[in-house]
Each structure stands twice: as structure tokens, then as C-alpha cells.
């Protein structure tokens, strides 16, 4: 299981990495923005992407649209503070797989991920 975390906050990337490690997932790559994420996405195979919305250079929504042009099936979970209904609808229309509002617990992250991938026990 290989996961790509995309968030401009190093703190949030570490929180997510620790959550994934607790779930037994240790193959984790990190990107600080959509540009870095797209570069990593094109060079490696990931099973799932966890992406923030608001980031410099390329935001999460643009990243999602770029990824969907390249891969219609890879699960992309948006992990963000953007809870407004209009934002969620926009993300769904752009092809987001699931949506998680910060703050979140490892259990909730696990539950969201398990809808899309099999987490090794």
C-alpha cells in the first residue's frame, strides 16, 4: 500500500503520516503542493492520495482535476478545513472520492480509506 500525502503544512503531513503508520502503512510519500504531487504521481504508482485543498502553487482542486485527466480510478480523499456545502459539491463534481474535515481522528481516516482500499492488517 503506497499513499501520497499532499499538504503545505509539514505539521499536517506528519500527523497524517503518523496516522498511516498506526494503521500499518509505511510506504508514504509527501508533497507540499499540487505541483510536487503531480510530479510524484507521474513518477510512481500510488494506491490512494490524501490531499489538502488550500495550497500555494497548485491547490487541491486543480490537482484533483489534473489527476482525473490522467487516472479516473485512483482514490483521492480531500482532507481540508473547507466544510461548506458548495465546496464539497465542487469537489464531488471534480471527481473526489471522499471528503474529510479537519480535525479528524485516525479511526475516521481509516474508515474513509477502507471504502476505497484494503488496509493491511
Amino acid at each position, binding site marked *: 500500500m503506497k499513499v501520497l500525502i499532499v499538504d503545505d*503544512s509539514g*505539521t499536517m503531513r506528519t*500527523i497524517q503520516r503518523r496516522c498511516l503508520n498506526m494503521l500499518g502503512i509505511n510506504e508514504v510519500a509527501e508533497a507540499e503542493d499540487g505541483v510536487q504531487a503531480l510530479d510524484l504521481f507521474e513518477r510512481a504508482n500510488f494506491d490512494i492520495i490524501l490531499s489538502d485543498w488550500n495550497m500555494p502553487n497548485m491547490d487541491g482542486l486543480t490537482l484533483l482535476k489534473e489527476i482525473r485527466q490522467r487516472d479516473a480510478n485512483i482514490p483521492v480523499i480531500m482532507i481540508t*478545513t473547507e466544510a461548506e456545502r458548495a465546496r464539497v459539491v465542487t469537489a464531488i463534481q471534480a471527481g473526489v472520492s471522499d471528503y474529510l474535515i479537519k480535525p479528524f481522528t485516525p479511526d475516521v481516516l481509516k474508515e474513509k480509506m477502507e471504502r476505497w482500499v484494503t488496509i493491511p492488517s
Partner: protein
Amino acid sequence: MSTVTRDCSELTSSCINPVLSATKSVFEAMLGCTPIRKGIALKDSSRPRYEISAVIGITGRANGTIAVSLKASTAMEVLYRLVGIQADEMNAEVCDAVGELTNIIVGNAKAKMEELQLSISIPNIITSSGHNVHYPSKVHPICIEFDSEIGPFTIEVGFAPEQS
């Protein structure tokens, strides 16, 4: 108290409540501690109480500024509780941790602020002792003091009604 001062106080209290409520729930969820309100005071300076501040702009029905100001030791404990890193000075990791914490507080307060016809900005982090925060002119900011398991912090706010 003059009518203008009373109106500003009522405005401030209605604008700040979503942020106070979000601060409590985010502290509990992310840091495992409940902030306790210790007092409220009118400020005669635009200088925040502590060494690091997350400054948030408010626009819409009212214009103003919210500064979440943390003592350096509180900020370092935020980093430790979030990611397990022990800092012994204010550094980029501490600033990032405080930025992310306050970003989540803002996100949680956003929906209620929008019900009040207010827009809330992404927080900017300012450090160093003696930094200043700008409030609308003729507005005396108020300072709400908190204590918590991880140390003290304040939420300092000043709002003026939208100019028609």
C-alpha cells in the same frame, strides 16, 4: 458607556463567539486539553500579549482583526502535542504547527461566521516579542485570556461596523 461603544461591544461579542467555540473544540480534539477562560480586558495597545500570534482578518458586516496569541512555551507544546517534536526555541516547525492549528480553528468557525455575513481569512503567523497587530481605527481591542494544560494564550479582537 456610549452607544457607539456598546454597539461595538455587542458586535464584537457576536462576531467572536464562533471563533471561541471553534477554539475550544479544536483544542480538545487536536491537543487533548480544554482551554479555560480566565478573564476579559480592554486593551490600550495593539501589541498582542505573547510572542507568537495568528492574525485573522474579518470582513463583511463588520471589519476587524482577531489575533490568537500564544506564549512561546504554549506554542512549543502545541508542536509537541500535534507531532511529538520537542522544540526548545521558536522555529519554523513551531510556527507551522500554530498556523495549522489556527487554520483548523478558522475552518471550523467559517460556516457560523458566514451565517453572520462575515468572511474570515486564512491566519498569518507573526512572531517576535513586541509585534503589533492592526485594528480598525478608533477601535479598542478586547483581550480574552485563557489558560490550559499546555499553557496560557489570548484571543484579542477588535471590530468596527461596516462603513455604509
